């Protein structure tokens, strides 16, 4: 049950889904919190460092997730044809937004040509740098996309709950670790 089947997500897909869900929501809260910190706060430097490090690592996980998705069967979507179509586009939008947020975040920190240090473990060098106003534009985009992503995630979670409690199908169960399908 490591791989997906026609009926259920496998262990790898489930782990990556929930790991990323946790990290993305965590990064959102962390992002909002850290930009309000006073310069003299003990965490003024630490939290952005953690935010960027987790964000970059998440990018690697996302690439892995998309590859894994490519070489696995997809469980059949459930619900009315309209619901299935919307679900498909929402999932695509979630992937796209995650990529765009990661790229825009990267472009903030590397706007002056500095590399990003990931947990003092390795560095990601700058590529696009020194565009006029780069850090400000990338920063505005980053913030807007983050809010958009979180709004879409709320919709996505509500839809999952609707499947579970109203449609009473196994859509939510097959993404969780509880014995369902």
């Amino acid at each position, binding site marked *: 049950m490591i791989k997906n089947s026609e009926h259920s997500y496998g262990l790898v897909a489930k782990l990556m889904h929930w790991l990323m869900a946790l990290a993305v929501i965590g990064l959102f809260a962390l992002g909002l919190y850290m930009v309000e910190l*006073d310069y*003299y706060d003990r965490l003024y430097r630490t939290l952005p460092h953690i935010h960027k490090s987790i964000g970059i690592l998440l990018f690697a996980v996302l690439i892995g997730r998309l590859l894994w998705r490519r070489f696995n069967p997809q469980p059949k979507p459930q619900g009315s044809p309209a619901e299935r179509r919307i679900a498909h586009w929402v999932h695509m939008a979630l992937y796209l937004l995650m990529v765009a947020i990661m790229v825009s975040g990267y472009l*903030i920190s590397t*706007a*002056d040509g*500095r590399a990003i240090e990931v947990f003092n473990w390795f560095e990601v060098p700058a590529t696009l740098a020194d565009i006029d106003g*780069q*850090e400000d534009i990338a*920063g505005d985009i980053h913030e807007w996309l983050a809010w958009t992503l979180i709004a879409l995630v709320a919709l996505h979670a509500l839809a999952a709950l609707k499947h579970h409690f109203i449609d009473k199908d196994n859509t939510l169960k097959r993404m969780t670790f509880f014995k369902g399908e």
Partner: protein
Amino acid sequence: MNTYAKKALRTLITGLALSTALLTTNSAMAREYQFDIKGAHAFIQFQIKHLGFSWLSGRFNKFDGTFNWDAANPNASSVNVEIDVASLDSMHAERDKHLRGEDYLNVDKYPQATFTSTSYTDQGDGKGLLKGNLNLRGVTKEIAIDVEFIGAGKSPWGAGLHAGFRGTVALKLEDFGMRSMGPGAEHVYMTLDVEGISK
């Protein structure tokens, strides 16, 4: 008239014409000078202490201005400067972004800073005190800039007279609604180095 007298007269006339020409260019007329932005012979820099440990320097990359100056009558001098505040550059993108944000320069709301002089008092020895109104972050406040004359004259390459000055002033962050940068860093020290070319 004989040829000798003619020649003498001509010499006298050309001499007179030449000296009047020389006099007018040399005589210190009040002129308007434009900051040499094209040649980047003008800099607005700031320095502020980092945690009280060291000096942090930065600059504004986009600004423009003019000044009127007459060496014979320095007290009639005046200066106008406009700064694009978002062009702040401290060689660190994340810090620049923070300094442009609401806690500091709030450039979205106040994109421009202006300085308009109200008086100049010559203190001799090429020094002087320039008073005027600085509008920064939506606050207008009278400030007094210490001015030092650096040099003036013609450049080797073209028309127009050049004149250069340095102005320095300490600004208190809180006076302009900005968060203090902590103990030992309440003030930012501004330096305006400018060379103007007469219009």
